[in-house]
Protein backbone atom coordinates (compact mmCIF):
# COMPACT_ATOMS: atom_id res chain seq x y z
CA UNK A 1 0.00 0.00 0.00
CA UNK A 2 2.56 2.51 1.16
CA UNK A 3 4.82 1.34 -1.59
CA UNK A 4 2.39 2.08 -4.39
CA UNK A 5 1.76 5.59 -3.00
CA UNK A 6 5.40 6.51 -3.22
CA UNK A 7 4.93 8.10 -6.64
CA UNK A 8 3.19 11.05 -4.99
CA UNK A 9 6.44 12.03 -3.31
CA UNK A 10 8.67 11.63 -6.37
CA UNK A 11 9.10 13.54 -9.63
CA UNK A 12 6.85 16.33 -10.78
CA UNK A 13 3.98 16.69 -8.23
CA UNK A 14 1.64 17.96 -10.96
CA UNK A 15 2.33 15.01 -13.17
CA UNK A 16 0.10 12.42 -11.57
CA UNK A 17 1.04 8.81 -12.38
CA UNK A 18 -2.14 6.74 -12.01
CA UNK A 19 -1.44 3.46 -10.25
CA UNK A 20 -3.91 0.65 -10.69
CA UNK A 21 -3.35 -1.29 -7.48
CA UNK A 22 -5.58 -4.22 -8.30
CA UNK A 23 -3.79 -4.61 -11.64
CA UNK A 24 -0.46 -4.74 -9.86
CA UNK A 25 -1.78 -7.47 -7.61
CA UNK A 26 -3.21 -9.35 -10.58
CA UNK A 27 -0.08 -9.15 -12.69
CA UNK A 28 1.88 -10.81 -9.91
CA UNK A 29 -0.66 -13.61 -9.78
CA UNK A 30 -0.54 -14.02 -13.57
CA UNK A 31 3.20 -14.26 -13.31
CA UNK A 32 2.91 -17.09 -10.79
CA UNK A 33 0.34 -18.91 -12.91
CA UNK A 34 2.57 -18.70 -15.96
CA UNK A 35 5.47 -19.98 -13.92
CA UNK A 36 3.35 -22.85 -12.64
CA UNK A 37 2.33 -23.79 -16.17
CA UNK A 38 5.89 -23.78 -17.38
CA UNK A 39 7.07 -25.89 -14.47
CA UNK A 40 4.30 -28.47 -14.80
CA UNK A 41 4.79 -28.65 -18.56
CA UNK A 42 8.44 -29.39 -17.94
CA UNK A 43 7.65 -32.10 -15.41
CA UNK A 44 5.03 -33.65 -17.70
CA UNK A 45 7.47 -33.59 -20.60
CA UNK A 46 10.43 -34.92 -18.66
CA UNK A 47 8.50 -37.67 -16.86
CA UNK A 48 8.33 -40.15 -19.78
CA UNK A 49 12.06 -39.76 -20.39
CA UNK A 50 12.91 -40.61 -16.81
CA UNK A 51 10.34 -43.37 -16.77
CA UNK A 52 11.83 -44.98 -19.87
CA UNK A 53 15.34 -44.84 -18.44
CA UNK A 54 14.17 -46.13 -15.07
CA UNK A 55 12.10 -49.06 -16.35
CA UNK A 56 14.68 -50.04 -18.96
CA UNK A 57 17.36 -50.14 -16.28
CA UNK A 58 15.18 -52.04 -13.79
CA UNK A 59 14.34 -54.78 -16.28
CA UNK A 60 17.34 -54.69 -18.55
CA UNK A 61 20.22 -54.45 -16.09
CA UNK A 62 20.57 -58.26 -15.93
CA UNK A 63 22.09 -58.55 -19.36
CA UNK A 64 23.95 -55.26 -19.32
CA UNK A 65 27.57 -56.32 -19.62
CA UNK A 66 30.42 -56.18 -22.07
CA UNK A 67 29.39 -59.43 -23.78
CA UNK A 68 26.01 -57.94 -24.61
CA UNK A 69 27.55 -55.30 -26.85
CA UNK A 70 30.44 -57.40 -28.18
CA UNK A 71 28.90 -60.70 -29.32
CA UNK A 72 26.41 -61.75 -31.96
CA UNK A 73 23.02 -63.15 -31.00
CA UNK A 74 22.78 -66.96 -30.86
CA UNK A 75 20.52 -69.59 -29.26
CA UNK A 76 16.84 -70.30 -29.84
CA UNK A 77 14.83 -68.20 -30.41
CA UNK A 78 17.78 -66.37 -31.87
CA UNK A 79 19.01 -63.81 -29.37
CA UNK A 80 18.27 -65.97 -26.35
CA UNK A 81 22.02 -66.24 -26.00
CA UNK A 82 24.70 -63.75 -26.99
CA UNK A 83 24.46 -60.01 -27.48
CA UNK A 84 23.46 -57.39 -30.02
CA UNK A 85 26.69 -56.74 -31.90
CA UNK A 86 24.86 -57.24 -35.20
CA UNK A 87 22.53 -54.34 -34.40
CA UNK A 88 25.30 -52.01 -33.23
CA UNK A 89 27.39 -52.64 -36.34
CA UNK A 90 24.26 -52.31 -38.47
CA UNK A 91 23.39 -48.92 -36.98
CA UNK A 92 26.90 -47.77 -37.78
CA UNK A 93 26.44 -48.82 -41.42
CA UNK A 94 23.06 -47.13 -41.65
CA UNK A 95 24.12 -43.87 -40.03
CA UNK A 96 27.23 -43.62 -42.20
CA UNK A 97 25.32 -44.34 -45.41
CA UNK A 98 22.44 -42.00 -44.52
CA UNK A 99 24.89 -39.25 -43.55
CA UNK A 100 26.81 -39.62 -46.81
CA UNK A 101 23.59 -38.62 -48.56
CA UNK A 102 22.01 -36.23 -46.05
CA UNK A 103 24.97 -34.23 -44.73
CA UNK A 104 26.24 -32.77 -48.02
CA UNK A 105 22.75 -32.48 -49.48
CA UNK A 106 21.17 -31.03 -46.34
CA UNK A 107 23.94 -28.58 -45.51
CA UNK A 108 24.20 -27.60 -49.16
CA UNK A 109 20.51 -26.86 -49.53
CA UNK A 110 20.40 -25.12 -46.15
CA UNK A 111 23.23 -22.79 -47.17
CA UNK A 112 21.70 -22.25 -50.60
CA UNK A 113 18.33 -21.37 -49.13
CA UNK A 114 19.70 -18.91 -46.61
CA UNK A 115 22.28 -17.22 -48.81
CA UNK A 116 21.78 -17.58 -52.50
CA UNK A 117 18.31 -18.24 -53.87
CA UNK A 118 15.60 -15.76 -54.73
CA UNK A 119 12.83 -15.16 -52.22
CA UNK A 120 10.03 -16.69 -54.26
CA UNK A 121 11.84 -19.90 -55.25
CA UNK A 122 13.08 -20.21 -51.68
CA UNK A 123 9.63 -20.14 -50.16
CA UNK A 124 8.57 -22.93 -52.53
CA UNK A 125 11.62 -25.02 -51.63
CA UNK A 126 11.04 -24.31 -47.94
CA UNK A 127 7.43 -25.46 -48.21
CA UNK A 128 8.47 -28.67 -49.97
CA UNK A 129 11.10 -29.23 -47.31
CA UNK A 130 8.57 -28.89 -44.50
CA UNK A 131 6.21 -31.21 -46.37
CA UNK A 132 9.00 -33.76 -46.56
CA UNK A 133 9.51 -33.57 -42.80
CA UNK A 134 5.80 -34.23 -42.39
CA UNK A 135 5.72 -37.38 -44.54
CA UNK A 136 5.22 -40.46 -42.30
CA UNK A 137 8.32 -42.62 -42.19
CA UNK A 138 6.38 -45.66 -43.35
CA UNK A 139 5.68 -43.84 -46.60
CA UNK A 140 9.39 -43.20 -46.99
CA UNK A 141 9.89 -46.91 -46.40
CA UNK A 142 7.52 -47.86 -49.21
CA UNK A 143 9.15 -45.33 -51.50
CA UNK A 144 12.62 -46.63 -50.60
CA UNK A 145 11.43 -50.17 -51.25
CA UNK A 146 10.15 -49.22 -54.69
CA UNK A 147 13.20 -47.17 -55.68
CA UNK A 148 16.06 -49.15 -54.18
CA UNK A 149 14.99 -52.66 -53.30
CA UNK A 150 12.76 -53.88 -56.10
CA UNK A 151 13.69 -54.35 -59.71
CA UNK A 152 10.69 -52.24 -60.70
CA UNK A 153 11.77 -48.80 -59.58
CA UNK A 154 14.59 -46.72 -61.01
CA UNK A 155 16.83 -49.63 -61.84
CA UNK A 156 18.66 -49.95 -58.55
CA UNK A 157 18.70 -53.57 -57.46
CA UNK A 158 20.00 -53.18 -53.96
CA UNK A 159 17.58 -55.72 -52.47
CA UNK A 160 16.97 -55.64 -48.73
CA UNK A 161 20.27 -54.12 -47.74
CA UNK A 162 22.18 -51.54 -45.76
CA UNK A 163 22.48 -49.37 -48.86
CA UNK A 164 18.74 -49.39 -49.57
CA UNK A 165 17.91 -48.82 -45.89
CA UNK A 166 20.62 -46.22 -45.36
CA UNK A 167 19.65 -44.18 -48.40
CA UNK A 168 15.99 -44.26 -47.39
CA UNK A 169 16.97 -43.02 -43.94
CA UNK A 170 19.12 -40.42 -45.70
CA UNK A 171 15.99 -39.08 -47.41
CA UNK A 172 14.33 -38.70 -44.03
CA UNK A 173 17.38 -37.00 -42.58
CA UNK A 174 18.01 -34.52 -45.43
CA UNK A 175 15.07 -32.13 -44.86
CA UNK A 176 15.83 -32.02 -41.13
CA UNK A 177 19.45 -31.09 -41.77
CA UNK A 178 18.35 -28.56 -44.40
CA UNK A 179 15.88 -26.84 -42.11
CA UNK A 180 18.19 -26.66 -39.12
CA UNK A 181 21.19 -25.54 -41.20
CA UNK A 182 19.12 -22.74 -42.67
CA UNK A 183 18.05 -21.66 -39.21
CA UNK A 184 21.62 -21.83 -37.95
CA UNK A 185 22.76 -19.53 -40.76
CA UNK A 186 19.83 -17.20 -40.11
CA UNK A 187 21.03 -16.67 -36.58
CA UNK A 188 24.34 -15.32 -37.91
CA UNK A 189 24.19 -11.52 -37.92
CA UNK A 190 23.77 -10.17 -41.46
CA UNK A 191 26.65 -7.83 -40.72
CA UNK A 192 29.15 -10.71 -41.00
CA UNK A 193 28.30 -11.47 -44.59
CA UNK A 194 27.96 -7.77 -45.45
CA UNK A 195 31.38 -7.14 -43.97
CA UNK A 196 32.91 -9.88 -46.10
CA UNK A 197 31.11 -8.83 -49.30
CA UNK A 198 32.09 -5.20 -48.79
CA UNK A 199 35.74 -6.23 -48.89
CA UNK A 200 35.31 -7.88 -52.27
CA UNK A 201 34.66 -11.43 -51.16
CA UNK A 202 32.46 -13.45 -53.49
CA UNK A 203 29.37 -14.94 -51.93
CA UNK A 204 31.04 -18.32 -51.88
CA UNK A 205 34.16 -16.94 -50.14
CA UNK A 206 31.98 -15.19 -47.57
CA UNK A 207 30.00 -18.38 -47.02
CA UNK A 208 32.98 -20.65 -46.73
CA UNK A 209 35.26 -18.57 -44.57
CA UNK A 210 32.87 -16.52 -42.46
CA UNK A 211 29.35 -17.91 -42.45
CA UNK A 212 30.06 -21.63 -42.22
CA UNK A 213 32.55 -21.02 -39.43
CA UNK A 214 30.20 -18.81 -37.49
CA UNK A 215 27.34 -21.26 -37.96
CA UNK A 216 29.48 -24.34 -37.30
CA UNK A 217 27.93 -25.08 -33.92
CA UNK A 218 24.41 -24.87 -35.32
CA UNK A 219 25.29 -27.01 -38.35
CA UNK A 220 26.69 -29.71 -36.06
CA UNK A 221 23.44 -29.62 -34.11
CA UNK A 222 21.55 -30.00 -37.39
CA UNK A 223 23.50 -33.14 -38.27
CA UNK A 224 23.19 -34.46 -34.74
CA UNK A 225 19.42 -34.10 -34.66
CA UNK A 226 19.20 -35.70 -38.10
CA UNK A 227 21.24 -38.69 -36.93
CA UNK A 228 19.28 -39.01 -33.70
CA UNK A 229 16.06 -38.99 -35.69
CA UNK A 230 17.07 -41.84 -38.00
CA UNK A 231 18.60 -43.97 -35.24
CA UNK A 232 15.11 -44.38 -33.84
CA UNK A 233 13.40 -45.28 -37.14
CA UNK A 234 12.01 -48.74 -37.79
CA UNK A 235 9.24 -48.34 -40.35
CA UNK A 236 11.49 -47.41 -43.28
CA UNK A 237 13.76 -50.34 -42.53
CA UNK A 238 10.88 -52.82 -42.57
CA UNK A 239 10.66 -52.36 -46.34
CA UNK A 240 14.25 -51.76 -47.33
CA UNK A 241 16.57 -53.67 -45.03
CA UNK A 242 14.54 -55.56 -42.47
CA UNK A 243 17.02 -57.24 -40.15
CA UNK A 244 20.09 -59.41 -40.08
CA UNK A 245 21.06 -61.51 -37.06
CA UNK A 246 24.62 -61.72 -38.31
CA UNK A 247 27.11 -59.29 -39.75
CA UNK A 248 26.66 -58.10 -43.33
CA UNK A 249 28.96 -59.41 -46.04
CA UNK A 250 28.39 -56.41 -48.28
CA UNK A 251 26.11 -53.41 -48.49
CA UNK A 252 23.83 -54.58 -51.30
CA UNK A 253 22.10 -57.76 -52.39
CA UNK A 254 22.00 -60.99 -50.38
CA UNK A 255 24.11 -60.59 -47.24
CA UNK A 256 23.81 -56.82 -47.53
CA UNK A 257 21.14 -56.45 -44.86
CA UNK A 258 22.23 -55.26 -41.42
CA UNK A 259 20.90 -55.41 -37.87
CA UNK A 260 19.57 -52.29 -36.18
CA UNK A 261 18.92 -51.60 -32.50
CA UNK A 262 15.46 -50.11 -33.00
CA UNK A 263 14.46 -53.02 -35.27
CA UNK A 264 15.92 -55.45 -32.74
CA UNK A 265 13.76 -53.98 -29.99
CA UNK A 266 10.72 -54.14 -32.24
CA UNK A 267 11.38 -57.78 -33.20
CA UNK A 268 12.33 -59.03 -29.72
CA UNK A 269 9.24 -57.50 -28.15
CA UNK A 270 7.09 -59.47 -30.59
CA UNK A 271 8.73 -62.80 -29.74
CA UNK A 272 6.99 -65.01 -27.16
CA UNK A 273 10.08 -65.22 -24.97
CA UNK A 274 10.77 -63.51 -21.64
CA UNK A 275 14.50 -63.55 -22.23
CA UNK A 276 14.05 -61.58 -25.46
CA UNK A 277 11.70 -59.14 -23.73
CA UNK A 278 14.37 -58.48 -21.11
CA UNK A 279 17.03 -58.18 -23.75
CA UNK A 280 14.88 -55.66 -25.63
CA UNK A 281 14.94 -53.48 -22.50
CA UNK A 282 18.71 -53.91 -22.25
CA UNK A 283 18.91 -52.82 -25.88
CA UNK A 284 16.91 -49.71 -24.96
CA UNK A 285 19.55 -48.85 -22.38
CA UNK A 286 22.31 -49.37 -24.95
CA UNK A 287 20.45 -47.23 -27.51
CA UNK A 288 19.95 -44.44 -24.98
CA UNK A 289 23.61 -44.67 -24.06
CA UNK A 290 24.60 -44.29 -27.72
CA UNK A 291 22.27 -41.31 -28.13
CA UNK A 292 23.80 -39.73 -25.05
CA UNK A 293 27.36 -40.49 -26.17
CA UNK A 294 26.64 -39.16 -29.65
CA UNK A 295 25.24 -35.96 -28.22
CA UNK A 296 28.22 -35.38 -25.96
CA UNK A 297 30.65 -36.42 -28.68
CA UNK A 298 29.14 -34.08 -31.27
CA UNK A 299 29.13 -31.19 -28.83
CA UNK A 300 32.78 -31.83 -28.09
CA UNK A 301 33.69 -32.05 -31.77
CA UNK A 302 31.67 -28.93 -32.55
CA UNK A 303 33.30 -27.03 -29.69
CA UNK A 304 36.75 -28.14 -30.82
CA UNK A 305 36.12 -27.27 -34.47
CA UNK A 306 34.86 -23.83 -33.56
CA UNK A 307 37.96 -23.29 -31.41
CA UNK A 308 40.27 -24.52 -34.16
CA UNK A 309 38.52 -22.59 -36.92
CA UNK A 310 38.81 -19.36 -35.00
CA UNK A 311 42.52 -19.54 -35.65
CA UNK A 312 42.20 -19.35 -39.42
Amino acid at each position, binding site marked *: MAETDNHKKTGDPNNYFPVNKSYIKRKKIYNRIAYGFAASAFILGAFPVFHIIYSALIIGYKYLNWRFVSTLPTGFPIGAKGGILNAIVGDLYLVVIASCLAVPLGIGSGLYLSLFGKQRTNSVIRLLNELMIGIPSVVWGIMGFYIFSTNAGLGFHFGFSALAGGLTLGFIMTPIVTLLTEQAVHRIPASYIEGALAM*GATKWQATK*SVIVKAAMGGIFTAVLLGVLNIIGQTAPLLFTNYYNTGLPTGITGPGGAVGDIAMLIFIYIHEPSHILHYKAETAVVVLLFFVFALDIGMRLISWLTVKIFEMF
Partner: protein
Amino acid sequence: MTDINKNNIDNITENNKDEIKIEVKNLNFNYGDYHLLKDINLFFKKNSVCTILGPSGCGKSSFLRTLNRMNDYTEGSKLTGEVLLDGKNIYSKSVDVVELRRNVGMVFQSPNPFPKTIFENVAFGLKIHGIKNKQFIEERVEKCLKYAGLFDEVKDKLHKNAFSLSGGQQQRLCIARAIATNPSVLLMDEPTAYLDPAATATILDLIADFKKFYTIIIVSHNIQQAGRISDYSGFFLDGELIEFSKSGDFFTRPKDKRTENFITNRF
Protein backbone atom coordinates in the same frame (compact mmCIF):
# COMPACT_ATOMS: atom_id res chain seq x y z
CA MET B 1 16.16 20.47 -56.04
CA THR B 2 17.13 21.26 -59.61
CA ASP B 3 18.80 24.54 -58.66
CA ILE B 4 21.10 22.89 -56.24
CA ASN B 5 21.88 20.10 -58.62
CA LYS B 6 22.75 22.52 -61.39
CA ASN B 7 25.05 24.30 -58.99
CA ASN B 8 26.81 21.09 -58.26
CA ILE B 9 27.42 20.40 -61.89
CA ASP B 10 28.68 23.95 -62.39
CA ASN B 11 31.03 23.42 -59.48
CA ILE B 12 32.39 20.37 -61.15
CA THR B 13 33.07 22.08 -64.43
CA GLU B 14 34.78 24.92 -62.56
CA ASN B 15 37.05 22.47 -60.83
CA ASN B 16 39.79 20.52 -62.42
CA LYS B 17 38.19 17.26 -63.54
CA ASP B 18 41.30 15.28 -62.60
CA GLU B 19 40.73 15.96 -58.94
CA ILE B 20 37.37 14.28 -58.94
CA LYS B 21 37.32 10.78 -57.53
CA ILE B 22 33.63 9.98 -57.65
CA GLU B 23 30.93 11.70 -59.61
CA VAL B 24 27.29 10.82 -59.08
CA LYS B 25 24.98 11.71 -61.98
CA ASN B 26 21.17 11.65 -61.94
CA LEU B 27 21.12 8.85 -59.44
CA ASN B 28 17.68 7.43 -58.66
CA PHE B 29 17.18 4.51 -56.36
CA ASN B 30 14.10 2.44 -55.57
CA TYR B 31 13.28 -0.17 -52.96
CA GLY B 32 10.55 -1.88 -54.97
CA ASP B 33 7.92 0.81 -55.56
CA TYR B 34 9.40 3.10 -52.95
CA HIS B 35 11.33 5.80 -54.78
CA LEU B 36 13.91 6.70 -52.15
CA LEU B 37 16.83 8.57 -53.72
CA LYS B 38 15.67 11.23 -56.15
CA ASP B 39 17.92 12.55 -58.85
CA ILE B 40 21.13 12.90 -56.86
CA ASN B 41 24.02 14.80 -58.43
CA LEU B 42 27.27 15.40 -56.61
CA PHE B 43 30.97 14.70 -56.66
CA PHE B 44 33.70 13.72 -54.26
CA LYS B 45 37.18 15.13 -54.66
CA LYS B 46 40.32 13.09 -54.35
CA ASN B 47 41.81 13.02 -50.86
CA SER B 48 38.98 14.92 -49.27
CA VAL B 49 36.59 14.11 -46.47
CA CYS B 50 32.91 14.54 -47.20
CA THR B 51 30.17 14.23 -44.61
CA ILE B 52 26.64 13.21 -45.45
CA LEU B 53 24.11 14.64 -43.01
CA GLY B 54 20.38 14.27 -42.69
CA PRO B 55 17.60 13.09 -40.42
CA SER B 56 17.05 9.42 -39.75
CA GLY B 57 15.49 7.54 -42.65
CA CYS B 58 16.38 10.11 -45.30
CA GLY B 59 18.45 7.62 -47.29
CA LYS B 60 22.03 8.29 -46.17
CA SER B 61 22.95 4.65 -45.72
CA SER B 62 21.20 3.66 -48.91
CA PHE B 63 23.13 6.32 -50.80
CA LEU B 64 26.43 5.16 -49.36
CA ARG B 65 25.65 1.61 -50.38
CA THR B 66 25.10 2.66 -53.99
CA LEU B 67 28.75 3.72 -54.11
CA ASN B 68 30.15 0.20 -53.67
CA ARG B 69 27.13 -1.65 -55.08
CA MET B 70 26.17 -3.24 -51.77
CA ASN B 71 22.58 -2.65 -52.87
CA ASP B 72 23.06 -5.34 -55.51
CA TYR B 73 21.92 -7.86 -52.91
CA THR B 74 18.74 -6.05 -51.89
CA GLU B 75 15.94 -7.82 -53.67
CA GLY B 76 13.62 -5.55 -55.61
CA SER B 77 15.97 -2.58 -55.57
CA LYS B 78 16.37 -0.58 -58.76
CA LEU B 79 18.90 2.03 -59.71
CA THR B 80 19.20 4.44 -62.59
CA GLY B 81 21.83 7.05 -63.30
CA GLU B 82 25.58 6.83 -63.07
CA VAL B 83 28.27 6.62 -60.44
CA LEU B 84 31.61 7.41 -62.03
CA LEU B 85 34.66 6.23 -60.15
CA ASP B 86 37.81 7.64 -61.76
CA GLY B 87 35.60 8.46 -64.71
CA LYS B 88 34.23 4.95 -65.15
CA ASN B 89 30.62 4.02 -64.40
CA ILE B 90 30.64 1.38 -61.68
CA TYR B 91 27.26 0.12 -62.87
CA SER B 92 28.43 -0.64 -66.38
CA LYS B 93 28.50 -4.31 -67.32
CA SER B 94 32.25 -4.56 -67.70
CA VAL B 95 32.94 -3.57 -64.10
CA ASP B 96 34.32 -6.26 -61.81
CA VAL B 97 32.36 -5.89 -58.58
CA VAL B 98 35.01 -7.71 -56.57
CA GLU B 99 37.70 -5.30 -57.72
CA LEU B 100 35.32 -2.36 -57.16
CA ARG B 101 34.80 -3.36 -53.53
CA ARG B 102 38.50 -3.89 -53.04
CA ASN B 103 38.99 -0.34 -54.21
CA VAL B 104 36.06 1.13 -52.25
CA GLY B 105 36.32 0.04 -48.62
CA MET B 106 33.41 0.24 -46.20
CA VAL B 107 33.14 0.60 -42.44
CA PHE B 108 29.77 -0.10 -40.92
CA GLN B 109 27.70 1.68 -38.30
CA SER B 110 28.25 -0.94 -35.62
CA PRO B 111 31.58 -2.73 -35.37
CA ASN B 112 31.25 -6.06 -37.18
CA PRO B 113 34.49 -7.98 -36.87
CA PHE B 114 34.39 -11.57 -38.08
CA PRO B 115 34.39 -14.33 -35.46
CA LYS B 116 38.08 -14.90 -36.08
CA THR B 117 41.33 -13.79 -34.53
CA ILE B 118 42.43 -10.17 -34.70
CA PHE B 119 45.13 -11.15 -37.18
CA GLU B 120 42.77 -13.13 -39.39
CA ASN B 121 40.24 -10.30 -39.46
CA VAL B 122 42.76 -8.06 -41.19
CA ALA B 123 44.34 -10.84 -43.25
CA PHE B 124 40.91 -11.84 -44.62
CA GLY B 125 40.88 -9.02 -47.18
CA LEU B 126 44.26 -10.15 -48.51
CA LYS B 127 43.43 -13.83 -48.63
CA ILE B 128 40.16 -13.43 -50.52
CA HIS B 129 42.08 -11.63 -53.21
CA GLY B 130 44.47 -14.52 -53.59
CA ILE B 131 47.47 -13.25 -51.63
CA LYS B 132 49.29 -16.21 -50.08
CA ASN B 133 52.77 -14.88 -49.23
CA LYS B 134 52.90 -15.22 -45.44
CA GLN B 135 55.53 -12.58 -44.89
CA PHE B 136 53.66 -10.07 -47.02
CA ILE B 137 50.44 -10.77 -45.13
CA GLU B 138 52.13 -10.39 -41.75
CA GLU B 139 53.74 -7.11 -42.72
CA ARG B 140 50.51 -5.73 -44.17
CA VAL B 141 48.46 -6.73 -41.14
CA GLU B 142 50.91 -4.99 -38.84
CA LYS B 143 50.96 -1.89 -41.04
CA CYS B 144 47.17 -1.64 -41.19
CA LEU B 145 46.81 -2.12 -37.46
CA LYS B 146 49.35 0.66 -37.00
CA TYR B 147 47.48 2.98 -39.39
CA ALA B 148 44.31 2.30 -37.45
CA GLY B 149 46.10 3.16 -34.22
CA LEU B 150 45.42 -0.24 -32.75
CA PHE B 151 48.69 -2.09 -33.06
CA ASP B 152 50.18 -1.18 -29.68
CA GLU B 153 47.04 -2.27 -27.89
CA VAL B 154 46.80 -5.66 -29.58
CA LYS B 155 50.34 -6.63 -30.52
CA ASP B 156 50.51 -9.25 -27.77
CA LYS B 157 47.17 -10.83 -28.59
CA LEU B 158 46.99 -10.92 -32.36
CA HIS B 159 45.82 -14.50 -32.23
CA LYS B 160 43.02 -13.90 -29.74
CA ASN B 161 39.41 -13.66 -30.88
CA ALA B 162 38.40 -10.21 -32.13
CA PHE B 163 35.39 -10.20 -29.82
CA SER B 164 37.72 -9.89 -26.85
CA LEU B 165 38.28 -6.25 -27.87
CA SER B 166 36.26 -3.26 -26.65
CA GLY B 167 33.73 -1.61 -28.97
CA GLY B 168 36.10 1.20 -29.92
CA GLN B 169 38.93 -1.25 -30.54
CA GLN B 170 36.63 -3.43 -32.63
CA GLN B 171 35.70 -0.45 -34.77
CA ARG B 172 39.36 0.42 -35.29
CA LEU B 173 39.94 -3.23 -36.21
CA CYS B 174 37.20 -2.88 -38.82
CA ILE B 175 38.95 0.21 -40.16
CA ALA B 176 42.24 -1.71 -40.31
CA ARG B 177 40.39 -4.49 -42.10
CA ALA B 178 38.88 -2.05 -44.59
CA ILE B 179 42.24 -0.49 -45.51
CA ALA B 180 44.03 -3.85 -45.80
CA THR B 181 42.92 -4.21 -49.41
CA ASN B 182 44.51 -0.83 -50.14
CA PRO B 183 41.36 0.94 -51.32
CA SER B 184 41.35 4.49 -52.66
CA VAL B 185 37.92 5.32 -51.25
CA LEU B 186 36.63 4.68 -47.74
CA LEU B 187 32.89 4.72 -47.04
CA MET B 188 31.98 5.05 -43.39
CA ASP B 189 28.42 4.73 -42.16
CA GLU B 190 28.26 6.45 -38.80
CA PRO B 191 31.47 4.79 -37.67
CA THR B 192 31.30 6.35 -34.23
CA ALA B 193 27.59 5.86 -33.54
CA TYR B 194 28.07 3.38 -30.72
CA LEU B 195 31.29 4.69 -29.28
CA ASP B 196 32.08 6.83 -26.25
CA PRO B 197 33.60 10.32 -26.70
CA ALA B 198 37.18 9.12 -26.20
CA ALA B 199 36.89 6.32 -28.75
CA THR B 200 35.08 8.72 -31.09
CA ALA B 201 37.89 11.25 -30.81
CA THR B 202 40.47 8.58 -31.65
CA ILE B 203 38.58 7.59 -34.77
CA LEU B 204 38.01 11.19 -35.89
CA ASP B 205 41.73 11.85 -35.60
CA LEU B 206 42.33 8.80 -37.76
CA ILE B 207 39.93 10.04 -40.39
CA ALA B 208 41.56 13.45 -40.53
CA ASP B 209 44.88 11.70 -40.98
CA PHE B 210 43.62 9.27 -43.61
CA LYS B 211 42.90 12.05 -46.09
CA LYS B 212 46.48 11.69 -47.26
CA PHE B 213 45.71 8.29 -48.73
CA TYR B 214 41.99 8.00 -49.26
CA THR B 215 38.89 9.78 -50.40
CA ILE B 216 36.58 9.52 -47.43
CA ILE B 217 32.81 9.69 -47.41
CA ILE B 218 31.30 9.53 -43.98
CA VAL B 219 27.70 9.47 -42.82
CA SER B 220 27.25 11.25 -39.55
CA HIS B 221 24.59 12.35 -37.15
CA ASN B 222 26.94 14.60 -35.33
CA ILE B 223 27.13 18.09 -36.79
CA GLN B 224 30.06 19.34 -34.73
CA GLN B 225 31.97 16.32 -35.82
CA ALA B 226 31.16 16.89 -39.46
CA GLY B 227 32.20 20.52 -39.26
CA ARG B 228 35.48 19.63 -37.66
CA ILE B 229 36.76 16.93 -39.96
CA SER B 230 35.14 17.37 -43.34
CA ASP B 231 36.03 19.40 -46.41
CA TYR B 232 32.62 18.99 -48.02
CA SER B 233 29.20 18.41 -46.55
CA GLY B 234 25.94 17.25 -48.06
CA PHE B 235 22.47 17.43 -46.58
CA PHE B 236 19.87 14.81 -47.49
CA LEU B 237 16.16 15.13 -46.78
CA ASP B 238 13.57 12.55 -47.84
CA GLY B 239 15.94 11.09 -50.41
CA GLU B 240 16.78 14.43 -51.99
CA LEU B 241 20.12 16.17 -51.87
CA ILE B 242 19.16 19.56 -50.51
CA GLU B 243 22.56 21.12 -50.27
CA PHE B 244 26.12 20.17 -51.07
CA SER B 245 29.07 22.51 -50.64
CA LYS B 246 32.40 23.17 -48.98
CA SER B 247 32.00 22.65 -45.25
CA GLY B 248 32.96 26.22 -44.49
CA ASP B 249 30.07 27.57 -46.57
CA PHE B 250 27.76 24.76 -45.58
CA PHE B 251 27.91 25.53 -41.88
CA THR B 252 28.26 29.30 -41.94
CA ARG B 253 26.21 30.29 -45.00
CA PRO B 254 23.78 27.51 -45.88
CA LYS B 255 21.91 28.35 -49.09
CA ASP B 256 18.77 26.46 -48.22
CA LYS B 257 16.45 27.28 -45.33
CA ARG B 258 15.99 23.57 -44.56
CA THR B 259 19.73 23.05 -44.22
CA GLU B 260 19.92 26.02 -41.90
CA ASN B 261 17.11 24.64 -39.76
CA PHE B 262 18.75 21.28 -39.58
CA ILE B 263 22.10 22.72 -38.57
CA THR B 264 20.79 25.21 -36.06
CA ASN B 265 18.44 22.76 -34.42
CA ARG B 266 21.29 20.46 -33.73
CA PHE B 267 23.90 22.97 -32.63
